[in-house]
């Protein structure tokens, strides 16, 4: 007989009151406001937008505040909010070659048109705690220099001209929006890229690292990494006029991988691609490496049976909201399930004991 259990309402309400109080912390210390979070914890805000799959800085900052800085909880809040929004339409594909770059580097070519520009990076810092930040609000001002406002072409387009790298040409395949349609394996590359772009940074980092350590024979170079603002173009349905409806920050990574050639393709370089909201280069690089390792079939490479090559494994497990939902639900009451298991184990033991006595 199934007996439903009620109760706990008061406990839940009181738990949430305490949550509210503890979120606020010591009231003698000034409360964080949303603008402080969106201006000063920008990379947390970017991660929540990227994995929450919704570009809105204020909402992201709000989610971070509400979740006490637990970014996966914040991503969960963004995803939940996202589902309530009516979808007005779809943009034109963005042109990342027209990006207003804050940063643009290549690890494969030193001298490139548009040059290497470091931007605001942690690279080359000493990773020593800066106790000055503890003491006062002083900061250095960014330096400025005269510039040429020219478009910065993609580095890999130069290899393209020599035919040394596999070209990225539209295949004409139609792809489904994975937020609107159930996933059916095998996926198109576009569907994989959508999943990866909103996938968990930690999971993708681990998988990308596994490919570097030899679980998939892929030695990747960062052909190009760029961060900056891109104009999102959208056609106003009432007017048929395409406008720049939003300015969105992206990080894009193109990886270059050596390729010995196969029955299908002569020796050349191949690519992996990462594109994410915000300034998240660890994620963009990870995405590019994992994208590349999942392309083994397309290039006629050997399947080595490793995790990063297995699209079903990667895509089914890279979403941290799915993962945490399933993982965390096991802490919620399972009294009835467990009661059934308990009865079963008791019964088996009873029978075992009877048999023991007979012998």
């Amino acid at each position, binding site marked *: 007989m199934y007996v439903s259990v009620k109760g706990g309402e008061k406990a839940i309400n009181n738990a949430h009151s305490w949550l509210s109080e503890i979120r606020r912390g010591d009231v003698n210390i000034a409360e964080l406001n949303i603008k402080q979070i969106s201006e000063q914890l920008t990379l947390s805000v970017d991660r929540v937008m990227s994995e929450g799959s919704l570009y*809105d800085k204020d909402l992201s900052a709000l989610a971070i505040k509400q979740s006490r800085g637990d970014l996966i909880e914040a991503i969960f809040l963004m995803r939940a909010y996202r589902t309530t929004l009516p979808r007005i339409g779809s943009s034109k594909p963005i042109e990342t070659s027209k990006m207003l770059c804050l940063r643009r580097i290549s690890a494969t070519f*030193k001298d490139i048109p548009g040059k290497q520009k470091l931007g605001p990076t942690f690279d080359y810092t000493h990773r020593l705690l800066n106790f000055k930040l503890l003491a006062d609000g002083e900061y250095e001002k960014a330096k400025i220099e005269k510039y040429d406002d020219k478009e910065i072409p993609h580095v890999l387009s130069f290899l393209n001209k020599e035919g040394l790298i596999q070209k990225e040409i539209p295949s004409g395949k139609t792809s489904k929006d994975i937020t609107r349609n159930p996933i059916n394996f095998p996926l198109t590359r576009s569907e994989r890229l959508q999943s990866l772009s909103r996938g968990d940074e930690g999971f993708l980092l681990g998988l990308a690292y596994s490919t570097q350590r030899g679980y998939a024979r892929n030695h990747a170079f960062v052909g190009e990494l760029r961060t900056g603002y891109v104009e999102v173009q959208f056609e106003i349905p009432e007017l048929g006029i395409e406008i720049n409806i*939003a300015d969105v920050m992206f990080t894009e990574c193109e990886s270059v991988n050596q390729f010995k050639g196969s029955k299908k393709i002569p020796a050349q370089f191949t690519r992996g691609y990462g594109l994410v909201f915000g300034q998240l280069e660890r994620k963009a690089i990870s995405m590019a490496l994992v994208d590349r390792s999942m392309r083994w079939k397309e290039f006629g490479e050997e399947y080595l049976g490793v995790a990063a090559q297995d699209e079903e494994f990667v895509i089914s497990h890279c979403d941290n909201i799915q993962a945490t939902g399933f993982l965390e639900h096991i802490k919620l009451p399972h009294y009835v399930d467990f009661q059934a298991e308990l009865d079963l184990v008791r019964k088996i033991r009873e029978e075992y004991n009877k048999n023991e006595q007979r012998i």
Partner: protein
Amino acid sequence: MQNESRKQWLSYLATADENYLISLWDNLNMKIEYNWLREPEIGSIMVQGKAGATGDNFNVGEVTITRCSLNLDKKIQGHGYVQGRNKYKSKIAALCDALMQTEKKEIIKRNIIDKLIKYKNNKRNEILSKTEATKVDFFTLVRGEDK
């Protein structure tokens, strides 16, 4: 209709800093009669990328958008499609779009659109000049064995 210029003003209105646009509009102190065709609603659009920057399209994620439409009279309609979730910003954009089609065009252009263009150009210049300052100038050291 002058689609190119309408495209331009709609773009600057859509991507304007909301506080800046609101202050510009409020300073004008205009009282405009209008009727709603669609009251401001918050939604999203899916942003598409291209695999490898030139290949197949794919969905990257959504961006929040607010839109509304109104008319000043039977003939003149304004549409306010803007980035973000600010309904007042959307309404201002729709009113500006409508007024840009009337004899008030010059007032709106001078006091709002031109200022938005300037604001955005300044932002752009700021980024470009800071980025330029982080440009790497490589130099090669002459090594002993080359002599």
